[in-house]
């Protein structure tokens, strides 16, 4: 079996993988990174999207061996320095998730979208997330969340001083921040 060396969510792994194994199977079965879900078998749904060297990739359409030497970020590694990513916060505040199954992929795809286009129109957001399916939200709140996160990210880039109003990351999954949204 081939050997791969990858970094996943900041941790280095040196593993043997079956040559036919998909990256998503490696993440879920070998590393226990089950925060990345599988939603289809035809690369249509995008639920398993991760960042591969910062670019979004459907981890069902990448072989594990192809990830050799690369840096992978999953939804589990997205929060940094004790704070949620602006997209995680925006999805929460704008009710951009219901069952949450598509959410990891949707957020990671949106990160890549905003990297390419920091100030997208609604139409550009819709086109940019075309490869990620959601069955619950009807997408309107996802579009609103991505727009809001884009504005926050742009503002942060313009004024790099630390924000005072940042929400802390809950230390455990149970401790949800109670942010009141005013849609």
């Amino acid at each position, binding site marked *: 079996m081939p050997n791969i060396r990858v970094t996943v969510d900041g941790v280095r792994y040196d593993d043997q993988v079956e040559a036919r194994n998909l990256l998503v199977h490696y993440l879920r079965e070998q590393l226990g990174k089950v925060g990345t879900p599988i939603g289809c078998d035809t690369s249509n749904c995008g639920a398993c999207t991760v960042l591969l060297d910062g670019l979004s990739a459907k981890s069902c359409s990448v072989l594990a061996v192809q990830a050799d030497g690369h840096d992978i970020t999953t939804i589990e590694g997205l929060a940094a320095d004790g704070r949620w990513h602006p997209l995680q916060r925006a999805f929460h505040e704008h009710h951009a998730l219901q069952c949450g199954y598509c959410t990891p992929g949707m957020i990671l795809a949106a990160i890549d979208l905003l990297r390419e286009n920091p100030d997208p129109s609604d139409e550009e957001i819709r086109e940019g997330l*075309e490869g990620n399916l959601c069955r619950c939200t*009807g997408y309107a709140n996802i579009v609103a969340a991505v727009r809001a996160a884009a504005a926050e990210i742009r503002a942060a880039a313009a004024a790099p001083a630390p924000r005072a109003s940042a929400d802390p990351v809950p230390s455990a999954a149970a401790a949800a921040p109670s942010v009141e949204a005013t*849609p």
Partner: protein
Amino acid sequence: MTTTPEAPNLGRAQARKEDARLLTGRTNWTDNIRLPGALHVAFVRSPLAHARITGVDYSAALELPGVVAAFSGADFADEQGSLPCAWPVTEDIVTPAHPPMAVDEVRYAGEAVACVVARDAQSAADALEAVDVDYEPLPAVLDMEAALADGADLVHADAGTNRSFLWPLTEGDVDAAFDGADVVVTRRYRQQRLIPAAMEPRAVVCRPEGDSFTLWSATQIPHVLRVMLAMTTGIPEQDIRVIAPDVGGGFGSKLQVTAEEVLALLLARRLGLPVKWTETRSEGFQTTHHGRDQIQDVSIAADADGRIRGLKVDLLADMGAYLMLVTPGVPILGALMFPGIYKMDAYSFSCTGVFTTKMPTDAYRGAGRPEATYAIERIMNELADELGMDPLELRRRNWIAHEEFPYTTIAGLTYDSGNYEAATERAVELFGYSELRAEQERRRAAGDPVQLGIGVSTFTEMCGLAPSRVLGSLRYGAGGWEHASVRMLPTGKVEVVTGSSAHGQGHETAWSQIVADRLGVPFEDIRVLHGDTQVAPRGMDTYGSRSLVVGGTAVVRACDRVVDKARAIAAHMLEAAEEDLEFSGGVFRVRGTERPSATIQEVSLAAFAAHDLPEEMEASLDSEATVDPDDFSYPHGTHLCAVEVDTETGRTRIRSYVAVDDVGTIVNPMIVEGQVHGGLAQGIAQALYEEAVYDTEGNLVTSTMADYLLPSAADLPDFTTDRTVTPSTTNPLGVKGVGEAGTIASTPAVVNAVVDALRPYGVRDVPMPCTPERVWRAVTGVQDNEGAAQ
């Protein structure tokens, strides 16, 4: 929505408690569960729609690496029982046996005939090809009308017929209503077959624990599933624990007792080890139940001034190959809804359930009510066209006026409340109805190749399923109550146990809002527990927009009982009479005095310590309630849709969509909005995009996400939503339910808009989904290969 000082949480756009784990990947989907020694199951499925099984040989599979066992249906014939149908809608209904793994005959492509059990999922999947099944093909039965003809090939030869049941209803003198009518409009509408496609595929894990079993499943109905597993397998109910962990959407598709769940339980018992199965998406499209699939023959009779005299509906409902949990009940849920919000003198309905060699149909978001609403709202527009009347004006002349509530409809339902005038007025204003009509006139006059169409849908639905006595009268096998218990912990925190089983709806948040106000405790101090028959032993689960209406009412009642108990202890603590205490904001005070008070948390601690309680008072504030609703609730609304239809390419683009819904009192406007959005998306998808297609051999052509058009963000419009609030009078919260509203209302709104755009071209219908090809054929009259112009 405004909150009040007494109820600071109810009506607040509170962001959800559920989100943190979902946003950070700390989820507990069934497929995430990994148990030591677990074996993985894969199913050999029939490639034929209909065939006799003449041999199953899995000996070669057993030789493959990692394979532990293999079984055919015959190996489980003595213990697998028959998958249950809980809704035999008539006394003489034909309910064929439905073995979880086929033994003698397969009746739809994808039906399980054997399984392989291996140490890992890939080995199990690999071994499927080594299982040799011999089939003797039998004729596929695909067309409902052909299936009912004399001499038709039979799905179930033993039954002697492809007709499962005939369910009739007649109210009023239908002949008289039609005989004297100035106008009669008759149409045939097709409710195409749909695939619910929750984002999380089905999965099940079962662990044997001595004589008992814990079964995790991606299900909407852990409680119903437990009862049914016990009844199907004979394993005592007390030995089965069912857990629905995080569940990634359902939309009715996980309101089922599936072959794979039954077999996981039986395999775990036979092998003495945990077993796990997760469907692939393509497997799921073939074998997770489908929705809709009706042929609707509808006639409406009216006077020249538009007053409706009568309505006749004859349905053919495709059951698929077997009757699953509520398969036959779905069209019957719609039976009472065809008259919609309109007054009329007479109504007749019949539904014939038909067997075909396809995947069984069952509940899909709205379950019977979208089908009914589509038919009435479509034919109302056709009637308006016949009368040369604006479709909104025709509705105004026939709907129940707000001062007429409560109103008993021709179908015998008593609508408790509603204000169709207010919702319509608001929708018309937001939509710019008259401006759009003027633009439509201009574009029609100019012969614009891109025509503007305006669609109207003024809908209602029956929600809050359901009063048990009504379910009993409709021959449903269970009741419609819901249970809740509220536990005050010594530290003053609260655990709320609910029998509803959320899978994306946000019950943890909404129930916390209700309890926070009712008990006067902080929202953050409440934890909601659900979806585990050991943690929440009583429940009827989540479907039919019932959770808030019925389950929320149970939570309210349980809270009130906590307060009643606390009041007795508080009175003792404050040395006052109970009737002199008032309770507000979580504090008991002696009315009209400045005397010391007691918070509910202090009372809770006192009850825990139990050092000084009133005589005969038990040392607990914990309370529970089981609520059976007195009647249904009836959300309603007015949806308006503007489409631009390119008559040259057939492409439809939704230009604007306005939804004004009245779902009664709002607990959390953000969640309500989200439910409406998601419902709209699914209803629009039925109108424009989705259809499960079988080929002439009975193979599902749309068996992957690459072939079945689930809309993406780029395929859907933004929505303009608003609400009117007419509280329901059938429950103390005044809520009506919102999970299905958007789906029910939007499909006819969109198709009415498409047809409206094409009326100058003589088009009176476009079958769903209104694809560019179908629109183009409707405009041009060019026929397809089967001779249909549309």
